[in-house]
């Protein structure tokens, strides 16, 4: 059994038929070939599958595709292309806040959401906010560095 599904993904409207049991992450990866959304645990623990659903981070592995009907989904690909993450991406790259890169899209989405809601978190707040994103490699220190430097740069940019 499939159901019709209409939603917006990275600014483009999408009309597909999906089985109701298909997760949003599988739908994005398999049907739309947006493979920057990764799967690590499929139980909402590791954060590799984070996407924005109507602007809020959700675990793509815990949301069914049909639950996103009528909504706006943004994935790492869309956020990268729009430039919304440009400074965070640059900082992650410069600070070597990634190794295998598997956790990186989810980390960036958490970091982005954190800075939307809390403009100037300290290192402890950054650590706490990112503790739902596992990095086995593990680049935690550099990830905090990258976010901290982005906060500084944004503050300088705003002040200038």
């Amino acid at each position, binding site marked *: 059994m499939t159901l019709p599904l209409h939603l917006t993904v990275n600014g483009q409207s999408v009309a597909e038929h999906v089985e109701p049991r298909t997760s949003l992450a599988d739908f994005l990866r398999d049907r739309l070939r947006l493979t920057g959304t990764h799967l690590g645990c499929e139980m909402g623990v590791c954060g590799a599958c984070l996407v924005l659903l109507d602007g809020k981070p959700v675990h793509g592995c815990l949301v069914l595709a049909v639950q996103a009907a009528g909504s706006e989904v943004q994935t790492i690909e869309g956020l990268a292309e729009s430039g919304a993450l440009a400074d965070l991406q640059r900082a992650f790259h410069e600070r070597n806040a990634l190794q295998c890169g*598997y956790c990186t899209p989810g980390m960036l989405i958490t970091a982005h959401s954190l800075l939307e809601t809390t403009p100037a978190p300290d290192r402890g707040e950054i650590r706490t906010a990112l503790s739902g994103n596992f990095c086995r490699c593990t680049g935690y220190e550099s990830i905090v560095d990258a976010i901290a430097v982005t906060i500084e740069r944004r503050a300088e940019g705003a002040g200038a």
Partner: protein
Amino acid sequence: MADVINTQGHVRLGSNAGQGLTRRDGVLKVTGAATYAADNRPEGLLHAVTATATIARGRVTHLDVAAAEAHPGVVKLYTPDNVPPLAVSPDEKIHPFVWRMEALQSDRVRYAGQPIALVLAETLEAATEAARLLAPRYEAETPHVTLDDAEPFETTTTAFGRPADHSSGDIGKARATAARHVVAEVETVAQYHNAMEPHAIVARWTGDRLEIDTPNQAIGLARQTFAAFLGIEPAQILIRSPFLGGGFGSKAILYGGQLLAVLAARDTGRPVKLVLRRDQMYGPVGHRAPTRQRLRLDLDEDGRIAALQHDTLTMTSSFDHFLEGASNASHSLYATAALQTTHRGLRADIGTPGPMRAPGEAPGSAALEVAMDLAAQAAGLDPLAFRLRNHAETDPSNGMAFSSKALRECYAQAADLFGWADRPAEPRRMRQGQLLKGWGMGSAQFPCPMFTAAAHATLRADGSAVVETSAADMGQGAWTALAQIAADGLGLDIDRVEFRSGHSDLPDAGVAGGSGHTATAGTALFNAGADVVRRLVDLATGDPASPLFGAGNSGVTARGGRLHRNDDGRSEAYEDILARAGLDMLRGEGTGAREGQPTRAMFSHGAVFAEVLVDPDLGQIRVSRLVGAFAAGRIINPRLARSQLLGGMVWGIGFALQEEALHDARTGRFTNNDLAGYHIPVNADAPMIEALTVHEDDPFVNALGIKGVGEIGVTGTVGAIGNAVWHATGLRSQRFPIHPESLILSGESL
């Protein structure tokens, strides 16, 4: 650092190598564009899901094949009754990185999580549901999954064929004259790699040619293994593995599921994708086995170790051999007149263990450093002073001199940054608010193996070059560090070098493991580049039209894409030399391997200092600071090396305080085989952490002076944290991980 070594006559390491360049794959990874194996989706794909055993020992007596096959979308189902056979015995060991190939050979169940059937369907969801519908029934037998009840077996070797036992010096005599001794008994538990990227494979046949996308740490060996078990030639197989989402050893060894996917693709004539769920990686794809270790250190009056004995009991599966070589960690770190190490093995109803980041060294170092702390206490010495007193000038296991060993400098730098000098000798002397604070330390050591690798370098008509080797980037940064070395070999700027890697049609780069990949593949790349330059020098110095004519073979240096005369400094660009010779390219080859039998002991070293805070009411332990200093030969890329070292140290936190796979002893099943139940460090568990690198020139380890940084960070750290917990609380846990209950239930009050 401006140190430049001249290894090959015309070219030098040190223009690109040594720079903290950002990763060449960084942009792909921050945009989501880097592709991992499971991202591939060829047309006509079938999704495979394995059904896995829920008992640890016994037989599968019934599978509801009819129900599973009737599920819409199911295309094919394999059980031991109809699975296509392997071309050779599953026990065939065609090279040392082959584990028994478990591919549905029989209805026998030998560990929980063992694949018992494979379902192929048009969608992942259908395959998953059909696997569930199989509803297996079993004839279960009593499983043995612990160090207490598993079956002892005779063995003369540990992991990778190392001898199980070692003895040097006269331990009886040494003990007879010793003033005192300490005994440490330490248990470590089963741990699972849990790379964030699950194991995955996409297999597609086109006629008799096989294409495989799978994350793999040793592509050349993997191709040989696939070929042997499929009964085809390696040349018929292409393996692509551009990026691994972490490997840590588990992706160095092929497992049966990969063969099953390939066989299913051949059988059905359609591409097949198999991605393991997190819970399915507990069993078939390796793990770090538990150990029970006992160390006895005999000391003389001055606190010198007279005799060191280290015994390990550990376990493997009922059908293969890998044994964690924990006692080997005591071979080469501290001076002792007499050394005796043993390993004893048990067979349990578990999947075969395998190498996991610092195999042997991690649990061995954990126990050794705890024993050293006990011994320091017995000798009345500060733990650092005690280690310095027992600093090994030569390798005590074989008497060899070290190729290099800047361990003293590591102690000094890390201790200084940490502030170790202020440490009170007695435990329970420091507080932070209500919390007990403690400081501990450990020495880090990791061997410097080399495998064998080959590489090609081709200089193109425009003076740029392409270098090729099938190296694996599992996150450590091979794409970047190896390209830096290759560029130096060619005497080119790194942006003029295209680096091709990550698939099996390229020259074999050996194994990305054992912390030996950069040294091995790097040597091959450097030599390939140097080979091109040598040919170029021959062309130029023999050509009367070249400014280099007559410069003589040794009078030329390659740098920045030009050959320079050493006498008068005149130079010529590579592209001009090629053009005049009428060549549109010039190709060189190189290999990397250790030459001859080593005559020196070769290790990376380090020192790790830890601070912990312990809640006296709850027993909760947090690492609040970690400082490490490491001497690991020539550092090719400080930015990448630092992240490897920090990553290893965070693994040390997991080992010391968190990671533990739990079995239900009655059924042998796991009770926490997921990322919620198996705890790995998250960001909030990572403290203020720093890793320094100490300069080290090593002319013996290999021509490039490269050691390795991938695993050493785990060693030293675990013991340091355990020792800090003692310093905070006065309690010594006899097992890792140290849990709050280990402290609370110790009977002592916190």
